[in-house]
């Protein structure tokens, strides 16, 4: 018979509240230690395929000869019962070679380094100069210049349309306020404060705003068709697909995009830098060109030699690109180049759902550079299927978001991206941060009383600072390629 001193404390699981007792019981009895497999002594030395029904079958075991039963017919009425094909059985799934995908949503992280409040911008050698544009230039072997080329700058103010400033201000007002659509806008949120909630707003959605602005400015530019009848041969396409693959030092990069707006012309753009390093490139119309003519863009070659490519030592520039095995081979630009007489003139990037602060300028410019390179590459491959460029290919692109404009001019000089010794690089001219107007009247912080989108019509007329230079650049880019 045990003594009372030995029993003290042992009756807890019988005296405590019921749910606590159950908890302890489940803790003890709710676990079941799986017994280890015991093979009888008679089978010890042999090599057997052990099948344990509690676990998954051994992959090295004997193959399963029983085949699953498949129904003899597949009626469309019962297709919903059939599970969809797994990703690996899709016909476009490449099992041998994955590819680095650059989409319209990838961000080159080099532009994502935001120093926090406590960190000062100390220059530790070359580290803080990480830029998304430089990463894109590494991938595409380009040299960037942060200005518009000289030949375009000279043509800036030469062609004007009467009343162009007033017309564009009216287009701005139309896009912001004076439009009859009223739709529910997506809910605003701030990442700074999680529980802050904004009111639901009904007004013009952003894609419509952008398309109003862009299409009206393009029709304004087209109104010069009386003076330059070549403008009527141009075409504007919407939502064309686009994909290419190119090889960079043995790694495939795949570009994929749906071009929102793309402007084509019957003749290709003439190259900006005509005489490259120690090589004279014969342009098509060599009769008119004299060797003695001063090339205003010639000094870019010398400037380009000073540019050093980015050295991101332990990190590859393809780090931000996702490796994909589901892609389509070949090039696609939305139309067959050989049959039609269309060459890409400009691509317009109109971002629908992005707010200005969602991506930095570096990321957007990097994206523009990559896709301009892609379009130029496709064009060059169609024109020169041998792989040897005689005349460089130029492509322009324009980025538009609310009031922000970026202009990019890309010139393709090589089709060789695998050798290190090749000294020919592509050139890119970037003009960034052009604000068409300022004091857009929808910032809640600045206008707490009328901060919502509802009351824009009341005061969109006041305090709108207009910048006429931006449209001049737009026009100059539009009129490239016309004599």
């Amino acid at each position, binding site marked *: 018979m*045990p003594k009372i001193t030995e*029993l003290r404390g*042992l*009756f807890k699981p*019988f005296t405590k509240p019921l*749910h606590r007792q159950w*908890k302890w019981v*489940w803790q003890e*009895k*709710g*676990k*079941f*230690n*799986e017994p*280890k*497999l*015991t*093979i009888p002594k008679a089978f*010890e030395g042999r090599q057997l395929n*052990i099948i344990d029904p*509690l*676990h*998954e079958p*051994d992959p*090295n075991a004997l193959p399963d000869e029983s085949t699953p039963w498949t129904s003899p017919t597949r009626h469309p009425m019962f297709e919903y019962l059939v599970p969809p094909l797994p990703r690996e059985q899709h016909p476009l799934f490449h099992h041998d070679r994955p590819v680095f995908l650059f989409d319209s949503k990838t961000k080159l*992280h080099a532009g*994502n*380094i935001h*120093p*926090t409040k406590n*960190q000062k911008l*100390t220059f*530790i050698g070359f*580290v*803080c100069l*990480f830029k998304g544009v430089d990463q894109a230039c*590494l991938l595409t072997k380009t040299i960037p210049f942060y200005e518009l080329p000289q030949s375009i700058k000279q043509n800036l103010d030469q062609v004007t349309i009467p009343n162009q400033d007033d017309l564009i201000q009216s287009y701005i007002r139309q896009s912001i306020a004076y439009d009859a659509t009223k739709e529910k806008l997506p809910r605003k949120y701030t990442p700074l404060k*999680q*529980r802050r909630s904004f009111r639901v707003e009904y007004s013009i959605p952003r894609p419509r705003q952008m398309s109003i602005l862009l299409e009206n400015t393009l029709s304004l530019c087209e109104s010069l068709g009386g003076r330059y009848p070549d403008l009527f041969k141009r075409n504007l396409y919407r939502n064309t697909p686009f994909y290419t693959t190119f090889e960079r*030092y*043995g790694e495939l990069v795949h570009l994929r995009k749906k071009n929102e707006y793309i402007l084509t012309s019957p003749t290709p753009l003439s190259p900006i830098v005509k005489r490259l390093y120690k090589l004279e490139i014969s342009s098509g119309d060599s009769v008119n060109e004299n060797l003695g003519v001063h090339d205003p863009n010639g000094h870019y070659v010398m400037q380009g030699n000073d540019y050093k490519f980015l*050295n*991101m*030592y*332990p*990190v*590859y*520039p*393809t*780090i931000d690109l996702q*490796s994909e095995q589901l892609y389509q081979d070949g090039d696609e630009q939305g139309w067959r180049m050989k049959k039609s007489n269309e060459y890409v003139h400009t691509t317009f990037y109109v971002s629908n759902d992005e707010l200005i602060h969602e991506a930095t300028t570096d990321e957007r410019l990097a994206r523009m550079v990559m896709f301009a390179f892609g379009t130029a590459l496709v064009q060059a491959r169609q024109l020169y299927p041998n792989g040897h460029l005689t005349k460089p290919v130029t492509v322009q692109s324009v980025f538009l978001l609310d009031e922000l404009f970026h202009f990019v001019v890309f010139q393709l000089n090589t089709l060789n991206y*695998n*050798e*290190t010794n090749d000294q020919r690089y592509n050139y890119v001219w970037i003009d960034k941060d052009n604000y068409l107007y300022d004091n857009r009247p929808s910032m809640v912080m600045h206008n707490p009383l009328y901060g919502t989108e509802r009351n824009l019509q009341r005061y969109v007329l006041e305090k709108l600072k207009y910048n006429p230079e931006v449209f001049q650049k737009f026009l100059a880019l539009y009129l490239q390629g016309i004599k």
Partner: protein
Amino acid sequence: MYSLIRNHVARVLQQDLTAVISPLSRSITANIPERKTNDDRTASNSQQSPKIEKTSENKVPWKANVVEMPVAMGPQYIIDNYREHREGGFYCDHRIIIPEMPEQYTVKPFQTRKSGGNHPDTGRKEYRRVGGGLKKTWLWIDWMRRGPTEGPPLVERVIRIMNSDCHTAKVALIGHGNTLRYILATENLKVGDLVKTSGEIPKNPVKASEGDAYPVGALPVGTIVNCVEDYPGQGAKYAVNAGTFATLMKRVDNRCILQLPTKHEISILEQCMVTVGRLSNVEHNEFIYGKAGATRLMGIRPKLGLFHPKTSRFGRRPFRPKPILVITGEKPDYPNVIKLEHPSLDPYR
């Protein structure tokens, strides 16, 4: 009363029997060839050296001198902790459940669900003072820092340092080659620093710099260290919170003795990986919330006990120093525990 005593006696007998019989059963099963290495369940793959690809192609300029190693964290981590991984989600913390765990390591932040202090199986309250608060995004941190055992070390660059909702220390995004991963940032880590890991144990101790990871046997006595593993290749376990560090006290044969932040000493094998330095966010314990609402937003519910009687359980309790905890051999191969489900009252299930 008699029935109670009989149950207790029966239980004692059962315990004695199992204590006697279990070693016998283990000795029987020890003769079986290790078929468990074929399964992915056990953690025996860690001892194998990972494949190291050193790209020495002269053609690719950005691949020169870069040591590539794949991320060590993978489905093994889930499978090791599979007791906490169930259909409802991955129960990684007493406050957080992650609904879907992918098959591979990702850098993408995860949306979590709060447990509210309730156990996911029984649905009953397990932990007090837990509930409410802001939403937390969980970052999958790589606890394993593996380095090449021969040749040049693995060099990585710090890309970003950020705060994490689920960890007190700061989290650094690190990249090398085409891989990105998160680790816990040490005190003086800055954006753009280079961080090394190597698995080599040379004869002379290595001059360690902050942020680098070495095996314990390679460091000199007296270094300050964090993210300590207990078994080599199992992931960091000790000194993992903000501002903590462990110190190397002694080296004995092929084992090292460290002092943990709780002043408890531990002896681990030489090959366990360890990072040098003190973890970031040193002022974490000096942070003053300012108001009760701040603690509520962190998910801490109020505490009772203002007017409860105080017994000898409260107050200053000086304890004797504990003996050194010696971690021997391989990680114990826990048997496969099958958890039974609580019977639910739902008649349609």
